[in-house]
């Protein structure tokens, strides 16, 4: 039983330290992605023509394998966490930018007209009306981005064991200890589910004004982010 948590010494970290590392490498990029996405999305809302090309660029970036990023970045940032986090940040944009743009755009015309008519300037209107109303959709985007980021961190293994829990996968093969792979996959999945639940809690706390959805069915076609993470990790 102890074999599951008996971390090989080459990783120079305990199980708990690996979890901390994993969370840092996964969450910081999402945070950076959010900070980037907010102004980009605002630009896309103001200048309608900008949205399609921005969407195209983020999608293309998402299609670039992380390995390709590593090859380029390693000359500049070396075998560090940063090299892992930069592509993860860019990947998160493909979810966050459209989530924010659509959310801000879906604020009812009447609400906007009412705000304008009451003498809200454009900035005040964005910060006090559009963004708060967009919170649920932004959090929904954050959930997908976070969960996918948590699973993607593992590829950092490829550049000098920067994959946190993912490093256990490589060690499992290297030392022929399959139980390490189980530890890696299960822990990653549990992390994803916990962080996702935390985000839902944040959403609920931020939006007391939303109708309680206890009796509404979850929308079909919107896969549960946690389930996605399990899939990603298993891949």
């Amino acid at each position: 039983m102890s074999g599951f948590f008996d971390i090989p010494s080459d990783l120079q970290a305990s199980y708990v330290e690996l979890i901390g590392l994993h969370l840092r490498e996964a969450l910081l990029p999402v945070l950076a992605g959010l900070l980037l996405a907010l102004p980009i999305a605002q630009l896309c809302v103001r200048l309608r023509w900008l949205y399609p090309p921005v969407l195209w660029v983020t999608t293309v970036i998402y299609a670039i394998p992380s390995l390709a990023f590593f090859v380029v970045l390693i000359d500049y940032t070396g075998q560090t966490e940063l090299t892992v986090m930069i592509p993860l940040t860019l990947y998160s944009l493909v979810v966050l930018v459209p989530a924010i743009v659509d959310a801000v755009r879906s604020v009812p015309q009447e609400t906007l007209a009412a705000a304008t008519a009451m003498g809200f300037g454009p900035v005040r209107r964005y910060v006090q009306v559009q963004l708060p109303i967009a919170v649920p959709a932004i959090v929904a985007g954050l959930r997908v981005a976070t969960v996918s980021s948590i699973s993607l961190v593992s590829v950092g293994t490829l550049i000098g064991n920067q994959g946190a829990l993912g490093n256990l996968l490589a060690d499992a093969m290297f030392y022929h200890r399959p139980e390490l792979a189980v530890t890696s996959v299960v822990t990653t999945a549990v992390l994803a589910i916990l962080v996702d639940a935390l985000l839902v809690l944040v959403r609920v706390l931020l939006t007391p004004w939303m109708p309680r959805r206890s009796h509404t069915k979850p929308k079909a076609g919107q896969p549960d982010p946690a389930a996605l993470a399990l899939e990603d990790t298993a891949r």
Partner: protein
Amino acid sequence: MDSVTKRYPDGTVAVDRLSLEIPDRSITVLVGPSGCGKTTTLRMINRMVEPSEGTILVDGVDIQKQPVNTLRRSMGYVIQNAGLFQHRTIADNIATVPRLLGWSKQKARARAEELMERVGLDASLAKRYPYQLSGGQQQRVGVARALAADPPVLLMDEPFSAVDPVVRKGLQEELLRIQGELGKTIIFVTHDIDEAIRLGTKVAVMRTGGHLAQFAEPAELLSDPADAFVEDFLGEGRGIRRLSFFPSEGLDLLTDPVVAVDATAEQIAARGASGAPYLLVTDGDGKPLGWSEPGSLPGAAPEELLAYGRPFVAGQDSLRVALDCAVLSPTGWAVAVDGTGKVVGVVSQETIGEAIRGAHAAGRTAEATGRQDDSTGRPEDSTGRKADVAG
């Protein structure tokens, strides 16, 4: 508004050389078919749309000379579906403009509570969010929010068109009451001509292309539509609807055909001698019970009496209501009651017909003189509420 034109960038002329003098402290209604430029006109007044040509003056000051947000905060704005901030509580919604104007939290909060009472909302709703309110309640919040900073001008764009007819009628009455108390200058947009006639002190009928077809008081609109378009837009039953503007005050009410249920045979014989074909039987309190032929009294059982239909309140209801009651009554006579429901007399269709002819004749002379001094003959009852117009 002086010769105001709005041409949108795509070339649409939404409003074409519109000139309107909107009277202070009264309700002016803009009415017309969809796309005739009502919303555009309204939004030019608070500069949400900038006019292409012409000037708009408020109290003699060109609105272009004021900072735009100052102008907007001095005008309340109410729209269809209320446009409430779904992420703020009812109290915070109402307090929006006072907060923008820098009022303290407590003062704004107190103001919100005061306004909730004024528009007929229970204080317990203050902490709720918009999704927890019915459409009619949301609309009330919209009105309260527009009134929050006590602006002299209120702009309303089809505020009541998304609620059902019963709620709408209640909101309209509430608006007239609030207007009676506060004396705001209200500009009200609707595509419902009945609403226009019911609410407006003056009504501007607009035609597609942003032209003004007629600007007149509702009674004049009904009696003298300027052209075929206005006539068509007013729809059926203009004559009957116009009766709403004639008070039932001067009606010749007969008390002879009214008998108490415990009247003696002689009393009934005396009443029957007046020649009325039916007598109205009242209970001990003077409330109506039903009609009966003089021959079958006294002692007619209550179920043998003919239903008296609906009574009208003498002096308060209009001739339209009186006529309606007479038409509904199986005997052709309408029952007039006072405010407490006590019978004050009865009146026949023929007598109401005479009163209508008399009112028309008086209207013509009043019109002839009224054109010179521009006096408003706005029909109001004692509570300041307008006569019942929409049928």
